[in-house]
């Protein structure tokens, strides 16, 4: 399935898709406001970008130092070259502990590795403890956004599934009431779990510690009550020194949701007395991306979600339309590196307006990389078949870089204008689901005609 087809499905529910668009724009706006309260904001982005550049240029050195220091602190470090090995390591630990039920806080890496279905197949009950993730888990869905997992759902749908799963009052869709019901339900799970799984936001080479950030406190509730903490970390999550956390923690939450910091930022250095911490370092395609020079710095991503919130396509097509664990602009760079065939339409799901690049806290040149992928895909697919879908798409998008170069500044203005004036007026390209080739042409021409004065 290609992105435009999936996007069309999302747009069928007009009210929800409009809400989705406006809500994410609101989050983007909060990010703008809070970033403007930090005078050194641009300097911090530059620092973060340079620190990550340094990390990628010395990745092997930092990983080895990180392992050495973590082991010295009593953390058990594992290495997994791919998703399969990662999942096997987790299962092995669970078997050793005779553990049949785990609690898990938000981890995009475990989504990427499809850990939940793997463990369930092996008889392990997995409870996602982030509220949004628990909601989508009840619905047998994946998160549609990396920071706001249930952003595609309305409270009525959540009320219905909670009524079914948690016996809440039928029709009561009050967010406070529903959150309380989840709290009671999850308390029971926390108190019963022997093993807790978390992701990792940052691993510090210098100290061997790692940091996990949440607003709900769910990661901490899980790991401090369990006997064993399994932390799953992509190898690119490493940073050199503790002092660098100062830079990244100032940027992360402000970029993600417009808060100045997440309410809980936990630094794990060694296990509590009598407990265990296992840390799994996962490659799963990251070394391959490191080798692609043009796309290398996509590995700088700290998963804040800002590029999704600002993206005019993401906001209007929903996370599921990307069919990739990380959706949105950054996902459209990362996913083709993992499976080019499957994700070949993603780099075309962009206006190349550059708004993603503007908000990215680590200054990834996202829209330029999307453009690069288009070149790669067009080359590789036209070699196979002159009439391939990518070829058709490519024909259509030649107007896009054109529009980008000619009127980049105005394009940015259009981000704000588009929601009302174009999207819901029947001119919307992603809404009407016509053949993709014509779409960018027409929308840009229309827009351009209207705004050239």
């Amino acid at each position, binding site marked *: 399935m290609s992105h435009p087809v999936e996007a069309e499905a999302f747009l069928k529910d007009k009210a929800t898709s409009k809400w989705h668009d406006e809500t994410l724009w609101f989050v983007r706006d909060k990010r703008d406001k809070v970033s403007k309260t930090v005078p050194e904001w641009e300097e911090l982005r530059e620092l973060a970008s340079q620190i990550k550049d340094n990390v990628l240029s010395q990745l092997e050195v930092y990983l080895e130092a990180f392992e050495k220091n973590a082991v010295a602190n009593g953390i058990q470090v594992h290495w997994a070259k791919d998703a399969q090995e990662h999942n096997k390591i987790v299962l092995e630990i669970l078997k050793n502990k005779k553990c049949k039920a785990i609690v898990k806080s938000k981890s995009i890496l475990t989504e990427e590795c499809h850990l939940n279905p793997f463990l369930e197949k092996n008889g392990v009950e997995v409870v996602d403890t982030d509220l949004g993730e628990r909601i989508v888990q009840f619905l047998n869905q994946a998160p549609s956004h990396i920071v706001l997992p249930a952003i595609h759902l309305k409270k009525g749908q959540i009320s219905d599934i909670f009524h079914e799963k948690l016996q809440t009052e039928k029709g009561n869709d009050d967010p406070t009431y529903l959150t309380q019901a989840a709290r009671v339900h999850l308390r029971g799970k926390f108190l019963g779990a022997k093993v807790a799984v978390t992701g990792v936001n940052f691993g510090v080479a210098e100290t061997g510690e790692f940091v996990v950030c949440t607003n709900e406190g*769910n990661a901490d509730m899980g790991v401090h009550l369990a006997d064993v903490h399994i932390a799953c970390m992509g190898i690119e999550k490493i940073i050199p020194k*503790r002092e660098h956390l100062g*830079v990244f923690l100032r940027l992360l939450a402000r970029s993600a949701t417009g808060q100045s910091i997440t309410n809980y*930022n936990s630094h794990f250095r060694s*296990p509590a007395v009598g407990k265990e911490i296992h840390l799994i370092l996962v490659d799963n395609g990251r070394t391959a991306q490191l080798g692609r020079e043009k796309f290398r710095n996509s590995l700088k991503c700290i998963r804040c979600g800002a590029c999704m919130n600002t993206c005019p396509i993401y906001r209007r097509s929903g996370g599921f339309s990307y069919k990739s664990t990380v959706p949105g602009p950054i996902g459209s760079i990362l996913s083709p590196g993992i499976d080019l065939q499957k994700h070949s339409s993603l780099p075309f799901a962009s206006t190349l307006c550059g708004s993603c690049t503007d908000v990215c806290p680590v200054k990834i040149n996202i829209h330029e990389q999307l453009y690069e992928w288009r070149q790669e895909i067009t080359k590789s697919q036209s070699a196979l078949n002159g009439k391939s879908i990518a070829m058709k798409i490519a024909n259509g998008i030649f107007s896009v870089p054109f529009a980008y170069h000619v009127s980049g500044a105005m394009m940015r203005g259009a981000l704000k204008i588009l929601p009302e004036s174009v999207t819901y007026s029947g001119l919307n390209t992603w809404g009407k689901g016509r053949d993709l080739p014509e779409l960018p042409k027409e929308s840009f021409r229309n827009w351009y005609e209207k705004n050239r004065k």
Partner: protein
Amino acid sequence: MNNSKDNILSKIRAVKRTEIPLPTIGEFAHPADLKKTFCEAILSNKGEILTQEGFMEIMASADFPKRYSPIEAYRKFNTFKLPQDPHALNDLDLAIVQGQFGVAENGAIWFEEEDLIHRVLPFITDHLIVVLSIDNLLGNMHAAYERMDNNHSGFGVFIAGPSKTADIEQSLVIGAQGARSLKVVLV
């Protein structure tokens, strides 16, 4: 297992790169009024600021029947015995803990394992009061990491507010999985 380590590291080494130097983090101006900025940050994180009188009123009231504090000076208020097994803290209504320092720019307060006794204490308790010395307010996160240096506590955490979520239609709800409130007393 070591196979994968070697596999990953050799794949990385095979990628030719020139070393890019680490930048130095410069000095950034601190907020002019640390106390005011800190209090505003706590409020915007949905925490509360308690006066010392307000704190004493809570201690004199029956609002939180099961209370525990590891702070020597407040032991007299304890109505809950520290359990061996941290799971038993699930019954706790209120924990009172001492923060090492607070960060004005975002309201983050730093704790280490030693301040909490059980790592789960500030999360599992229904409500949390933090006592913090005004002298221990810092301007920003850079100052915070400089201050903690390379202390070797097994666990440290910045807490900046109560447990909260906006996962249902972006409506903010306080009291998700952790403490339902955070009150800070500056002394």
